[in-house]
């Protein structure tokens, strides 16, 4: 049986991890490669690197980082952040990324999803959707959740699937940073209406939240950052807890 995936997310700026990480055993806490290796060894199923740098050299720096990660890490990883063209994706995949994640650029130019899926295959195209519940309706937000649109989350997700995305990374802006759990109601709707895997993101605070998002939210994978970076949750303990709750995981 296919297992549920646990995915740590690393924010990257100019080739370095951004958010403070609390790994005392790291020689260099800012080195994404070393952190990635530790996560791979500790049982992470995949990794996501989200590049938030905005420099001219961004593309080259990111490609170098991707190559260094691919050399060292023996689990799959996704790269996202500011990807807006076929060429961007080509460079990242050629340097060893397994998947790329596109977000705002897909909303601005939905045909990009079709182009990428046709050229590289759906399996390596993740579409990230940031959404926020406003007056009862889930609306897609852009630029890291800062800019609202009038696009309905569920309609957009369906369109993303039809255009050829291989999976969806859904971040609830209502839940992100709260540590009060994932947006399981919306996730469950996405998961039952769509036929591609859904990654839950935003709100992880404790192990029960992960159990809930897999069981109630029907998520296929769960992504989190700070609970892992600050060692509030060890991946191995989390997976043992999930297994005790009847959730199939790789242990």
């Amino acid at each position: 049986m296919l297992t549920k995936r646990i995915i740590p997310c690393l924010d990257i700026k100019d080739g370095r991890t951004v958010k403070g990480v609390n790994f005392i055993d790291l020689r260099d806490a800012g080195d994404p490669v070393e952190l990635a290796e530790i996560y791979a060894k500790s049982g992470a199923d995949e990794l996501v690197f989200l590049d938030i740098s905005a420099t001219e050299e961004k593309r080259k720096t990111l490609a170098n980082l991707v190559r260094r990660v691919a050399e060292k890490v023996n689990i799959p990883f996704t790269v996202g952040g500011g990807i807006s063209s076929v060429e961007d994706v080509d460079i990242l995949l050629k340097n060893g990324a397994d998947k790329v994640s596109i977000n705002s650029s897909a909303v601005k130019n939905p045909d990009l999803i079709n182009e990428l899926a046709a050229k590289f295959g759906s399996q390596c195209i993740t579409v990230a959707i940031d959404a926020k519940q406003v007056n009862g309706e889930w609306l897609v937000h852009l630029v890291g959740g800062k800019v609202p649109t009038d696009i309905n989350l569920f309609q957009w997700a369906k369109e993303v699937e039809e255009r050829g995305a291989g999976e969806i990374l859904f971040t609830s802006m209502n839940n992100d940073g709260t540590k009060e759990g994932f947006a399981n109601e919306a996730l469950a709707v996405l998961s039952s209406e769509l036929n591609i895997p859904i990654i839950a993101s935003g709100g992880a605070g404790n192990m029960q939240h992960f159990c809930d998002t897999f069981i109630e939210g029907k998520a296929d994978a769960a992504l989190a950052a700070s609970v892992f970076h600050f060692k509030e949750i060890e991946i191995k303990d989390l997976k043992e807890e999930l297994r005790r709750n009847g959730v199939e995981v790789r242990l």
Partner: protein
Amino acid sequence: MKIVIIDYGAGNIQSIKFAIKRLGYEAILSSDAEEIKSADKVIFPGVGEASSAMKMLKSTGLDKVIPTLKQPVLGICLGMQLMCTYCEEGDTDGLGIFHADVVKFDNQLKVPQIGWNKIYDLRSELFTGISEGEFVYLVHSFYVKECAETIASTEYGVEYTSAIQKDNFYGVQFHPEKSSDAGEKILENFLKVTQSNTVK
């Protein structure tokens, strides 16, 4: 040992090269028939869509070369699927090395299957040191049906072939280069395969 990864423009081949390097070997990428024929081990990767991958293979003439290879050959993911008789994806005739058809997963399931699943009924030296039920990383929408050449199975709504062997030709549906330590062990086992092994 000369290891050649067939480079015909399909897929993420850097990862395979890096995985081989982590095992202490060097692999070269090539689309040159003579280079491929002179290798001790050949890896036939592939990611993407079957009919366009087959077109790329035909345009380089490699569709004629691969079935004639005498050294151990490992097809990975789409590479393995293209070595089969027929792929439903894009109505594509395969290389006909493995006597099995490749069909799409049932729509009741999420497709593609993305993630870690178990391999079992392991019967090949490819799996020396690998436990029954070991986890490997898979990403695919189409699967190879069970057949006489199956050497490992996986369950995703249906029981299907996750590894296959005929004579010197091996295929794995999963990505050994992305399947953590177990995947690297399987890749290493392939690199240690000697000629004329048979299915146990």
